[in-house]
């Protein structure tokens, strides 16, 4: 939502106020990591590591026209990739995401969640920012360092890849 000087001001304020930075962005980083790792608990642990790194490194960041959030997501994405490599496997623990009264739907959700985790990280990030955090594309573009049009195309391709995955799994409708 911010342009020019406003974005710069926010960058500097977040850089100088770790607690405000943490309170503003911890929850969304947990949600992002939960989708990447498939585990809410692992996401909380890793999010703490992301912010521990932020506490050390954010004060020294140079302003390059992108918000501190962009840095947080990049570090979170790198840490998630390291964690997945370390595990050498993927977890399918959906935690509280399970629907309480529809077994078939839960099965479909498992397939969907797995399909989402198998998307390239860039696709997962655009889905997260646009659909989980509800950010307008202008903000998504700033975090991802791309144009609005490029982010819209990424989201479209993410949707198409999901559809292909579901067709392979024999799951068709998820309205």
């Amino acid at each position, binding site marked *: *939502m*911010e*342009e*020019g*000087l*406003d*974005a*710069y*001001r*926010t960058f*500097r*304020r977040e*850089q*100088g106020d*770790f*607690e405000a930075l*943490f*309170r*503003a962005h*911890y*929850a969304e980083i*947990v*949600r992002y990591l*939960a989708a990447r790792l498939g585990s809410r608990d692992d996401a909380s642990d890793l999010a*703490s590591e992301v*912010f*521990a790194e932020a*506490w050390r490194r954010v004060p020294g960041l140079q*302003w*390059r*026209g992108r918000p501190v959030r962009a840095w947080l997501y990049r570090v979170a994405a790198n840490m998630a990739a390291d964690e997945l490599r370390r595990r050498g496997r993927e977890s399918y623990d*959906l935690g*509280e*995401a399970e629907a309480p009264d529809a077994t078939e739907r839960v099965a479909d*959700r498992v397939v*969907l*969640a797995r399909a*989402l985790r198998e998307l390239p990280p860039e696709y997962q990030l655009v*889905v*997260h920012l*646009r*659909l*989980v955090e509800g950010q*307008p*594309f*202008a*903000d998504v573009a700033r975090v991802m360092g791309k144009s*609005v*049009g490029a982010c*819209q*195309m990424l*989201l*479209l391709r993410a*949707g*198409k890849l*999901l*559809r292909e995955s*579901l067709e392979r799994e024999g799951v068709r409708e*998820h*309205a």
Partner: protein
Amino acid sequence: MPERALALELDRALAGEDAADEARELAALLVAASEPSRFEVPAAEVEAALVRTQPPRRAPVRRRPRLVVAFAAALAVAAVAALVLHTPTADVEAKAAAALDRTYFVVEDVRPARPGLFRATVVSGTVDPSRGLGHWTASSGGDVLSETRVEGDRVTRWDAASNTLTTAESCSAFASGCADVLDPVELYRRTLGSGTGEIRRLRGGWEITLGGGRVEQIVTVDGKTYLPTRIEWRDDGRPVSVIRIVTLDRHARADAEAFALRPHPGARVRHLDATGKPVRVESTHAVDVPRGALWLGPTWNGFLPHAEQVRFSAGSALRIRYGPTTVWNYEKVVPPEVAAARVGFAKTATLRRGVVARIYFTDRGAIVSDVELQGRRAAIVTAAGGKEDVVGAAESLTRAP
């Protein structure tokens, strides 16, 4: 359908608008896939994680007594010097504040101190400090980037990049915070009262340095008018941006049109509470029309009134329905259907009793009239009818006995 067009259709489908079948199918899939991640992280969990993550603060360093004595002596010398050499700090700040303590129209040229920091912008707008009103437009290369209206605590901001109109009951709802929604001159005006300024005499004026934080405002003030002519922002001593005041005209008063947002057809409306979350209805319960509420009388066009107290997450409002006509009584929170109407074309009408009303023409044809009457604020929403109907209703508003 070409991919680019389909991507735009997908965006429309995700916004709940009409879109092609394939776009709607993909939107449904993406929404379902991301649903498990849409969980809340409780505030208590955030605070606990913050305590775990934040390294312990360093113990304060004990200073040597000798240094303390030397410091105290230096303070004493400085105090004596301050008494002997009277500095005009307070006078200049007071005069600078007084110079801006009336309605003013300003045009600012905002440029980065180094190329690439941000886009050069032109900010223009009007501020009425006595009424707490402000309206600014920021543009770059002829394109409008944003438009901001401040009315007391309430801030409404239109962002061109996303064609989104955000209304918030408090500046704190914006990620950038209260100070950052203000234009540089208004920020300077508000900071002047903090008493943190340092003054330096220049040829033909003064230089006021404000703000002890990381970003400082170094403001050049004209020696005769005490109006700002240039503002420089410095970060850790290094210049970040230079704001040149191109025009600063003072007026006795500006009319309501100067503070009105332009129409932004098709804009998405976001209505945020003070915490930055979307305003939502929490409860609705039927009530008798309270004494003093603005209403249309015991009947309107043959319809009886049905009053409800509607509690939103940002406050509550009174809704009185007369068939297709609704009267909202509100103070702190603007009802979302009223806020949503404000993206449309608007006209100002003066009613019979000299009351000024704003009439908005929305995409759905509904018309809203904002009326301030006898210290209360009301809006009338008509699902049917035209301008004459809503003006007629506004002129019939009266306090309930």
